[in-house]
């Protein structure tokens, strides 16, 4: 069961997980990560921009890579675009597998790629002013973990 989506309005991750789990009968484990807008540094709002011809196809390619790398039964990958406020969910990745390591690894793998290699541009509103967010070195280092020779 594979469910890859971009959403332009508030979503409730909990409402997605139950149906996703039920759609993968016989699974041994489900791992879910939900990312939310942090309320630190006086952030009033966060806006994520995407580019339709690249962003969703890129998420599908990432899902293909996750299925190739891990023994998965199902993968749910839902990402917000548009304006969000602190406490609102940005991303939900859930992986169902026969064994826990594949489920946990697939979520970690997808999140590291979504955080630094997916086609999203982010800006924050602080004190009424929008500021573009630059790529973070830590995100690049997290991504590099998956590309080291084994």
């Amino acid at each position, binding site marked *: 069961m594979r469910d890859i989506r971009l959403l332009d309005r508030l979503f409730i991750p909990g409402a997605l997980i139950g149906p996703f789990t039920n759609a993968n009968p016989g699974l041994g484990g489900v791992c879910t990560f939900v*990312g939310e807008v942090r309320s630190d540094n006086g952030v009033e709002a966060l806006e*994520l*921009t995407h*580019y339709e*011809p*690249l962003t969703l*196809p890129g998420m599908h390619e990432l899902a293909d890579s996750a299925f190739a790398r891990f023994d998965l039964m199902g993968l749910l990958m839902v*990402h917000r675009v548009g304006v969000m406020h602190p406490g609102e969910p*940005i*991303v939900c990745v859930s992986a169902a597998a026969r064994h826990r390591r594949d489920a946990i690894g697939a979520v970690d793998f997808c999140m590291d790629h*979504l*955080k*630094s*290699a*997916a*086609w*999203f*541009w*982010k*800006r924050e509103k602080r004190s009424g002013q929008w500021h*573009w*967010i*630059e*790529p*973070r070195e830590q*995100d690049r280092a997290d991504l590099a973990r998956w590309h080291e020779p084994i």
Partner: protein
Amino acid sequence: MVTVVFLGKLADLAGAPSLSLGAPLDWAGLRAALPKALAEVLDDPRNRVAVNGVLVADKAGLRAGAGDEIALLPPVSGG
């Protein structure tokens, strides 16, 4: 016409999210039609270019015809 789409902070430099330019359009023609500050930023290899949703390997070899969409893509900041 060729549609040029500016993503992320490139839209701020362009002053608009998109622009229509006459076809055909090559890299020199695109640079000449944009504000100088933006044209210079585009030379940075970290800023990528896509035509009709396909990344261009060699920006200088860009060719776009009527109805094509060029996207100017700064480094992604992640989801």
